[in-house]
């Protein structure tokens, strides 16, 4: 029997099933439609395995980027030796953090290192720094050193790195920076530091977030309007490709877009639209696609409890990006076509609940299973006490690590690559996800691309509306969240656990950070060579007005002469203007 005959036979059987089995049951319960779905070969009629899935590590990477992840090679040894990951990071990347002044954070890092913590810097900057203000700006009032460390000038940057010498020197461990609008300044500081230490800058590794477009859609720490922001990106991209080839250029944030309320389709489409804009900027800077595309990375798509959808999303994402790079941009290097991201599927912090918080452990495990089934480490992220807003406790972190270990070693979740490959359901859901994302991307393309779709407010408004729609579904009991809008009666009991919050940052230092930082900034302004600063800033200003210049050398010159982050940002504000908030 040929394929056609086979399909016909199933079609007949499907009709019969619907009429004789499904239909009566729906009727019996008085329903309008079936509350469940069933998938058969009819749902994936045109599925060509090699074209749509392929083997792990082969185009279009639906089944994964590699035959097995590097950690699988060490998994058994890690269990035998009791290896404890420096959680929050992967490999040599250190735990994400930052507070107070540079010396506060340096001291903290040194203390952590003395307790055995390894890994490179993974720096959180305070909001003033992220928005291009110095600690003495009125905008910085109350924000200095709060959600991250305050960096006003190269001096501060250098002080943090006093914790990274020897085995942890900058040619040995990577540096991660959650920085977007002032990314050029921070990268310039990194390059300057290498120079001062006598380390060739082409040995520098790490990842600046440097994803400015998503700041307009989510997260909100933008400075300049989208167009000049893309010019700055181009300059970073070209400069890094030529001189810092081991540094990733950016980390495109589907995560933030989703957390801001986007649907999974918007998450995919908007991240890729932004990604395309970055790729185009690199090409416009005269780069060959394969020279820089491998250094474009992603920061975890996903973020919901719907594990089937999240797995399909990961599969579709790898396929879409690979095709865009190969077919649209003519990439030849497989590394250009792969989505590099630290984690795959996950539930996102916004899936956790303040109510009955220990339930978040169950939630995170489901995210971990989805991750393990979609090509990533089955990590139980985030720790259950995430929504309590006090930092993660040692207990929550222990439970998180153990849950991950249970998924890896006992449940063997990650022992099979793409275990869903060939599932009628999953292949069909992957196709649907891909189609919907491509349709949304086409809409954006027709508007003129990501930049235009930010300028006209389309992407940010879509995300805000989706967030509101989601809220309405929860309030109207069309979506259920256990312990929040259902199962909340007095019969339910609160399960509590002892919780010791890790003594992260010294509260006394937090309190005085702003004053101390302002004082050291004032000292810097007294001590530095004022003429050199203004000369460097002037050159930057002149070159900023001319789109053909790459501004990175000028920014490095400013940094070397101890111009402050705000002074540099102000010059660019003056030339580029400031971004407008988006009207709802």
């Amino acid at each position, binding site marked *: 029997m040929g394929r056609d005959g086979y399909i016909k036979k199933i079609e007949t059987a499907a009709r019969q099933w619907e009429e004789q089995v499904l239909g009566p049951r729906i009727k019996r319960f008085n329903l309008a439609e079936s509350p469940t779905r069933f998938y058969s070969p009819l749902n994936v009629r045109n599925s060509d395995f090699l074209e749509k899935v392929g083997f792990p590590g082969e185009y279009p990477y639906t089944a994964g980027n590699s035959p097995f992840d590097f950690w699988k090679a060490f998994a058994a040894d890690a269990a035998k030796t009791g290896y404890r990951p420096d959680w929050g990071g992967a490999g040599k990347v250190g735990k994400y953090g930052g507070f107070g002044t540079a010396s506060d954070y340096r001291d903290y890092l040194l203390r952590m290192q003395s307790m055995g913590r390894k890994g490179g810097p993974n720096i959180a900057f305070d909001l003033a720094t992220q928005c291009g203000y110095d600690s003495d700006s009125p905008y910085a009032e109350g924000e200095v050193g709060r959600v991250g460390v305050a960096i006003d000038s190269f001096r501060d940057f250098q002080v943090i790195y006093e914790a990274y010498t020897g085995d942890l020197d900058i040619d040995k461990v990577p540096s991660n920076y959650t920085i977007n609008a002032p990314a050029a300044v921070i990268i310039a500081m990194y390059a300057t530091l290498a120079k001062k230490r006598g380390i060739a800058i082409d040995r520098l590794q790490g990842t600046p977030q440097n994803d400015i477009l998503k700041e307009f859609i989510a997260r909100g720490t933008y400075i300049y*309007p989208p*167009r000049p922001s893309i010019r700055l990106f181009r300059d970073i991209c070209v400069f890094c490709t030529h001189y810092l080839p081991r540094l990733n250029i950016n980390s495109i944030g589907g995560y933030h877009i989703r957390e801001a309320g986007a649907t999974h389709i918007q998450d995919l489409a908007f991240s890729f639209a932004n990604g395309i804009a970055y790729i185009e900027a690199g090409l416009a800077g005269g780069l060959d696609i394969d020279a820089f595309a491998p250094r474009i990375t992603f920061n975890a798509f996903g973020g919901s409890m719907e594990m089937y959808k999240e797995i399909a999303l990961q599969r579709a994402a790898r396929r879409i990006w690979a095709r865009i790079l190969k077919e649209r941009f003519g990439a030849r290097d497989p590394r250009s076509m792969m989505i590099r991201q630290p984690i795959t599927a996950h539930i996102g912090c916004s899936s956790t609940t303040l109510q009955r918080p220990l339930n978040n452990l169950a939630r995170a495990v489901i995210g971990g299973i989805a991750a393990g089934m979609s090509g990533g480490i089955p990590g139980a992220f985030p720790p259950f006490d995430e929504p309590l807003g006090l930092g993660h406790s040692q207990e929550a972190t222990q439970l998180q690590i153990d849950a991950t270990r249970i998924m890896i070693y006992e449940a063997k979740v990650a022992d099979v690559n793409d275990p869903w490959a060939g599932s009628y359901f999953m292949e069909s859901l992957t196709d649907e996800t891909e189609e919907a994302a491509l349709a949304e991307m086409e809409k954006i393309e027709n508007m003129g691309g990501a930049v235009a779709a930010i300028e*006209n*407010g389309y992407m940010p408004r879509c995300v805000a509306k989706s967030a509101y729609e989601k809220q309405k579904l929860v309030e109207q009991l069309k979506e259920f969240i256990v312990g929040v809008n259902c199962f909340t009666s007095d019969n339910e009991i609160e399960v509590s656990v002892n919780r010791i919050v890790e003594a992260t940052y010294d509260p006394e230092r937090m309190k005085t950070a702003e004053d101390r930082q302002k004082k050291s900034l004032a000292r810097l302004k007294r001590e530095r060579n004022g003429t050199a600063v203004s000369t460097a800033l002037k050159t930057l200003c002149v070159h900023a007005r001319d789109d053909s210049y790459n501004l990175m050398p000028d920014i490095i010159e400013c940094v070397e002469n101890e111009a402050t982050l705000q002074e540099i940002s102000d010059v660019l504000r003056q030339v580029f*203007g400031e971004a*407008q*908030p988006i*009207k*709802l």
Partner: protein
Amino acid sequence: MQREVSEMIDAMKRGDTRALARTITLVENRSPGWKEAMQAIYGDTGSACVFGITGSPGAGKSTLTNEIALRLHDQGYSLGIIAVDPSSPFSGGALLGDRLRMRNICMKTDIFIRSMATRGVLGGLCQAARDVVRILDAAGKDIILIETVGAGQDEIDVVRVSNFVMVVCIPGQGDGIQAIKAGIMEIADLFIVNKADLGGADEIVADINGMLDLCTHNGIPRPPIMKTSTETKEGLDALVENLIAYARERKAATEVNRNHVKEEILSLLEREVFHFVREELSGNGRFEEAVEQVLSHRADPYSTVEELLGSFPLYRGMKTREK
């Protein structure tokens, strides 16, 4: 007049911002005492120059308003800004977001910004806007800017409260100025092609010119067209110079003003008469009775109206004279 109201108006005239804001609320809500308040301030009005800014959504009106206001303020003018956004027809609520585009000016002491919702009051928005303009005028603002989406008749009516209307267009807006609602072309005193840095600005200038060729006739002054960009600041200084020149030359009693006064008196009359009639009819139960009649097809609505009005001597007299 209630004492609190008169005290509030005195405070407002002395420059008290809170009193100004509260007077606007009182009048906008038609709360008890609003009419007396308007009567009391009318004598202090008439000196402010009122500019209307309208155009399709996304034309950059708020940002442009921000830039214009900033420049006028730098030249020493005190300003009132009214930003109008539509109310939701479903909930009656509104999301008023223009203020967020005005961050450069929102802290200037001589600039007062007020967001206003259309509130779905048929024909009432124009009067409400006019009232707020008067209050700002009486509070001593030299120039008042009214910004609104040129989407419906209501919004068009709002800008007609102004002495001078700017219609903002942008390049690449679908079929160009077709997007601009009919009725707006006729009231424009100036066309602004905003976002001129985006390219395609000359095409839209040509489009507007083409349209003006069709609809301006002999004797009617042809509104000029200016190009601006709030990104590159192109054209903004020139635009503001024009506005200032207009404000200086403006004659107190032009034909346009006469029409405004006529319109206003008629619309106030209309509302008063309507209220009067409604109150009278609802008081004696005749209205409900008439509804029943029409419902059961014993009477038609047209004759019913004549009959209802027949109970007013003034109307009876008019009908008798007609015959």
